[in-house]
């Protein structure tokens, strides 16, 4: 059995973000990077399944991006993935979710994975589209935002998180793709022996040009900080006067009395 888990490297969300020079994405200067949180749930679930199924199963981790994403790949290897694919792309951040999905799908088609894990969304772009678009392009069954997962001989039972605190259960047959949500599991820390062992695992590099065939369906036209809202007004003085003052403002500036 062959399993793929897709991960993205994202900035530490505690960073201070600034738009880049082109004004269409954030500037990468001085950012610290880490594995996308939702992808950690995906890796953990994939590794648990890999451990359950044993040596006949091979778990591959894939990430698209510049040289720096190797650090996230190495973490996934240290968590227990068997091998890695780094799709080298210095302009990954400029691609839309459809294109990113097409790159993954092109690779996955070659390899014929039985099961693909992905995070529910990325913490930076947050489109939540890449996973489903990969499934669409591969013609795989797909379910999203899962918080529970079972696998038995090609049959997948996934618990999904729905709106309003509801949960749903989905059954699918492999080949399939699932996207993982907070609450699915607690990702392990890579242990020191595993970090060192991961050093010897294979990371194959594929230039993005080899896999990219699709054009963008969406373009980011502008990326900027939200406009600052005007400050509030503090009214002070006698209560009687305050009430009439407030009523005046409500009449004048709002639709409350209209």
């Amino acid at each position, binding site marked *: 059995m062959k399993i793929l888990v897709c991960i993205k490297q994202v900035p530490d969300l505690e960073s*201070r973000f600034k738009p880049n020079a082109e004004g269409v994405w954030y500037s990468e*200067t*001085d950012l610290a990077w880490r594995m996308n949180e939702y992808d950690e749930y995906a890796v953990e679930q994939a590794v648990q399944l890999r451990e359950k199924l044993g040596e006949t199963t091979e778990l591959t981790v894939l990430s698209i991006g510049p040289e720096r994403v*190797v*650090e996230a790949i*190495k*973490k996934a290897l*240290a968590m227990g993935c068997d091998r890695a694919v780094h799709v080298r792309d210095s302009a990954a951040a400029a691609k839309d979710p459809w294109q990113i999905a097409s790159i993954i799908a092109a690779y996955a088609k070659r390899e014929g994975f039985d099961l693909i894990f992905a995070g529910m969304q990325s913490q930076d772009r947050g489109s939540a589209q890449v996973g489903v678009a990969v499934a669409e392009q591969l013609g795989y069954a797909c379910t999203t935002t899962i918080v529970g997962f079972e696998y038995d001989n090609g049959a997948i039972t996934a618990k999904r998180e729905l709106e309003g605190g509801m949960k749903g259960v989905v059954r699918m047959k492999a080949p399939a793709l699932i996207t993982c949500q907070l609450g699915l599991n607690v990702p392990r*820390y*890579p*242990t*020191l*022996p*595993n*970090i*060192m062992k*991961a*050093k010897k695992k294979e990371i194959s590099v594929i230039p993005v040009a080899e896999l990219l065939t699709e054009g963008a369906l969406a373009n980011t036209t502008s990326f900027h900080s939200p406009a600052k809202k005007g400050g509030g007004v503090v009214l002070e003085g006698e209560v009687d006067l305050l009430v009439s003052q407030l009523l005046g403002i409500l009449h004048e500036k709002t639709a409350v009395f209209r």
Partner: protein
Amino acid sequence: MSAKLFKGAEYLISEVSSADVFTPEDFSDEQRQIGATTEQFVLNEVLPHREEIEHHNLPLTVELMKKCGELGLLMIDAPEEYGGLELDKATSMLAAEKLAQAGSFSVTYSAHTGIGTLPLVYYGTKEQKEKYLGKIISGEWIAAYCLTEPGSGSDALGAAATATLSPDGRHYILNGTKQFITNGGIANLYTVFAKIDKQHFTGFLVERTTEGLSVGAEENKMGVRGSSTTQIILEDAMVPVENLLGEIGKGHKIAFNVLNVGRFKLGAGATGAAKRAITEGVRYANERKAFGVPIATFGAIQEKIADQTAAIFASESVVYRLAGLIDDRLATIPKETPDYYEAYQEGIEEYSIECAIAKVFCSEMLADTVDAVVQIHGGYGFIQEYAAEGYYRDERINRIWEGTNEINRLLIPGIILKRAMKGEIPLQKEAMKAFESLMSPSFDELDDSLPFAAEKALLANLKQAFLVLAGSGVQKFMNTIKDEQEILLAVADVAINIFAIESAILRAEKILPALSDSRKASIRAAVKVFTFNGSEKTASAARRAAYYIEEGDTLTMLLAGIRRFTRYDATGLLQAKRQLASASIAAEKYIF
């Protein structure tokens, strides 16, 4: 790692290039990941229980040590053939640095992995390692080291504990009391030092269940209250002869060699603790308002943040530079060398001066940092609910154990002189040259196009000042200089500050090209602030030494030389401090 292999103390007599120093920015992906795993463990598993640990929930500490074992955090320094990872010192220091954020728990960890484990690793027989090492690196057993006694501390060889061979020749019978034993109450294996026949100082591996071994009451300590510290009492404790560690009468080698690494690791720990403390201080400064604005907007607060950020940068630079020095040297010893650990020990001992420097410099940096952090907190810094109060108490022990800072200071010129006598360091020759330059001032213009030109010129001069003082001291007192402790302390301060300033400058120079403009500005500011503070401290120590050593015209000449040798143009110092403070305040943490 780097191109050139440096000898211990060589920095004092030669120029070091930035390409030859290891820096935290040189960490591999694996090292960074190990750092991340360690940090996550501390943040998620240890710190949430800080209160319980501080109130002496020792079973919880033991449980957390087992978790450390599962993560492999106890395997770093152990050999591969016994299930260890045998990683380099840089990695070991990084783990120690990250763990130091855990307060009392980090004391348990350091004692276990350092003085608890290393004697067995370095001096244990195959059988001893097979029997004990697996248990120790998995966290199944906790280890402790028993050297100090009620009547002997810094003079460890004056131990009164005795070992006598039993009539049947199968056991040593140990008697004595060991004092201030970290992990005493929770350990399963103790490395105990005692004198065979009251004269041969020797190490023994003693299991907790040994009949005749008892554990004293927990000490009620000023700081690191969550760690276990007890007496270990030996009353006719029967230790099997196969548990003798190393050779009879060679216990001092074990005792002192593990101390080198211990001192060095203490430096790494102090650096980690300081990073956490300053982060807390900056956060509080942003939160707390006075006169309607956050106190972080005040220059009085900003200056503390800037000074300490610069000092921590230097401290980090010292620790990892030393890690690089040691790792480079150890890498030259083939693993298959017979007596590998003998050669390994010699490799570490080469840098005993630098280990002592790291111990003193980093622990005192931490003392200044926690003091500043309490001060930033004002009255709240005095209240136990605030972490600052704990940092302040926990810091104090670092200037006492692993050799007091006085002992470590005395070691520095002591070892330098010993090596000079043996001809290993051309101290005399270099001192003569320095005297000559004292008489004939140079008027070389600074080449401002080179990075940190002013700082490097200062460094070269500070080294001259050191040589002149060391030379004068030796000339005046000859062999009795070793008894002139006040002079040795002052000269040690000069040597310590030179190493720290140099480490900060070389690291900055090495990493500068790859940085963004704003990071460049912060690094330059840190170098300026630290070099200024360091040069002032050096000047003061050098003057102290001069007054102690000389009088009359020679003194006047020395003082004039010191004035010239410690001159540093710190134009832009205030802007540098404000730059450093504002970057820290924006990031709300230690920024490097």
